[in-house]
């Protein structure tokens, strides 16, 4: 009954999440809207592009009802550019995640507003995030790997390989082998970064460490280990930390005594 899994999403669970990423399809057949729990699907009218969740796009693709437009970041030129930045420009860090899409707010000119942020107000509003913030559609920016990049790339290569190689509009036709090779290189480069981040953990004497730009699968693979190391460092340092806190409290106590003129 109870879920026998350790804390943190596993690979299959992450893959399940990634299937909710929106991708852009070009329908080959008409399809009337379907009343789904997540809302009505848009009507499919060839050759008009539509954004759909990946799981549905793959279903349509398997039935030859639609083609999938690969996201611009999956194009070989974009992947090569990202690899260049990951290795040459910022060899220490993961490349930047896609920027939060901003659009000018009509009611408040001059103030850019993030798309996907509900305007109910700060308290009741809900901020959308991966996989619900569009990052894998045809409109997504090139050169940025979204949180679910690896899952989406693998799924598209496996089930829509012909669409991936057909390339985006105006781009030269590439081979699936080329994209596959670039993805493999990228996985290697970033796995090495994940590994070297473990070395940084020794200095994890302070409480914060950022892995900005890391992907969901990369986290799933290293989560147990990395968190295990962080927890171990905390337990080994517990007595040192306790002593430091006591000393700090004493000092603060003295200072406040002085403040009060005692």
């Amino acid at each position, binding site marked *: 009954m109870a879920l026998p899994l350790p804390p943190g999403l596993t690979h299959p669970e992450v893959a399940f999440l990634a299937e909710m990423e929106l991708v852009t399809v070009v329908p080959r057949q008409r399809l009337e809207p379907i009343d789904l*729990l997540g*809302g009505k699907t848009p009507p499919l009218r060839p050759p008009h592009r539509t954004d759909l969740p990946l799981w*549905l796009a793959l279903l349509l693709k398997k039935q030859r009802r639609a083609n999938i437009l690969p996201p611009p970041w999956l194009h070989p030129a974009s992947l090569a550019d990202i690899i260049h930045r990951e290795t040459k420009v910022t060899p220490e860090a993961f490349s930047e995640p896609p920027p939060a899409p901003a659009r000018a707010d009509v009611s408040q000119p001059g103030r850019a507003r993030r798309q*996907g942020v509900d305007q109910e107000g700060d308290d009741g509003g809900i*901020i959308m995030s991966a996989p619900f913030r569009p990052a894998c559609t045809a409109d997504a920016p090139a050169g940025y790997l979204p949180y679910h990049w690896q899952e989406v790339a693998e799924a598209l290569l496996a089930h829509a390989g012909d669409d991936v190689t057909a390339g985006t509009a105006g781009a030269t036709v590439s081979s699936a082998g080329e994209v596959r090779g670039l993805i493999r290189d990228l996985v290697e480069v970033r796995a090495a970064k994940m590994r070297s981040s473990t070395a940084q953990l020794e200095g994890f*004497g*302070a*409480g914060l460490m950022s892995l900005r730009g890391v992907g969901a699968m990369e986290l799933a693979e290293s989560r147990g280990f990395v*968190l295990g190391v*962080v927890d171990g460092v905390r337990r080994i340092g517990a007595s040192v930390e306790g002593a430091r806190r006591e000393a700090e409290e004493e000092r603060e106590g003295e200072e406040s005594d002085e403040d009060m003129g005692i």
Partner: protein
Amino acid sequence: MDIDDILREVDPTFHTIPQEKRDLQELTRAWTAERSAPELLPWPTSGLFERINDSIKHQIEKVEEMTGDMDPKTNFALIVIQTELERYRYLVRSYLRARIAKIDRHTLHYLSTDDLRARLSEMELAYATRHQALLHNHYLSSFLSSFPAGLQNLNDAAGGISMIETPDLDAAVFIRLLKDTFVTARGVDEDDAANMRESDIIILRWSDAKPLVEAGSAELV
């Protein structure tokens, strides 16, 4: 006409994200959080699960209707509807099971104070209470009753160690910032405080991450 409708007329940007999409985001976020947090999180009081369970029920009824008149034209729509339905059911099931795993592991802890009990849904509370009673009776009849009276307790705290185990609230977690946020975190050698950016993915102690998650500035990943 309720307040939402009025607001929508006044401000066209209000609720640009439809309720269904917001519910799915919330459900997914609640599931990820429950799967990642070292302790049981409060049962959402927003009516989220009631809404989702209702729509799942309706959808099941619709599937039954549709299978009744098997028109090949609606066949594909049926496949899509069933696929999506299974995805929702998986999310809800996995969420509930992750919670039960935590309740089972630290039952006495979550039943120990009113604040902790308030985190459980009505059903979960009934389950935890009944399950604990069954377990206790079983222990009593199989071995506890042969112990000296003073050693029969399951909630002793003598000797500096409580028999009631609690989750490790300082366990490390990964969070993603949903907006630019000032983050403070305790460390071994020093405490850290920094302005962090939206989309930053951070490792820190759950006890330091919790206020950010509760304020909606961050989510567990």
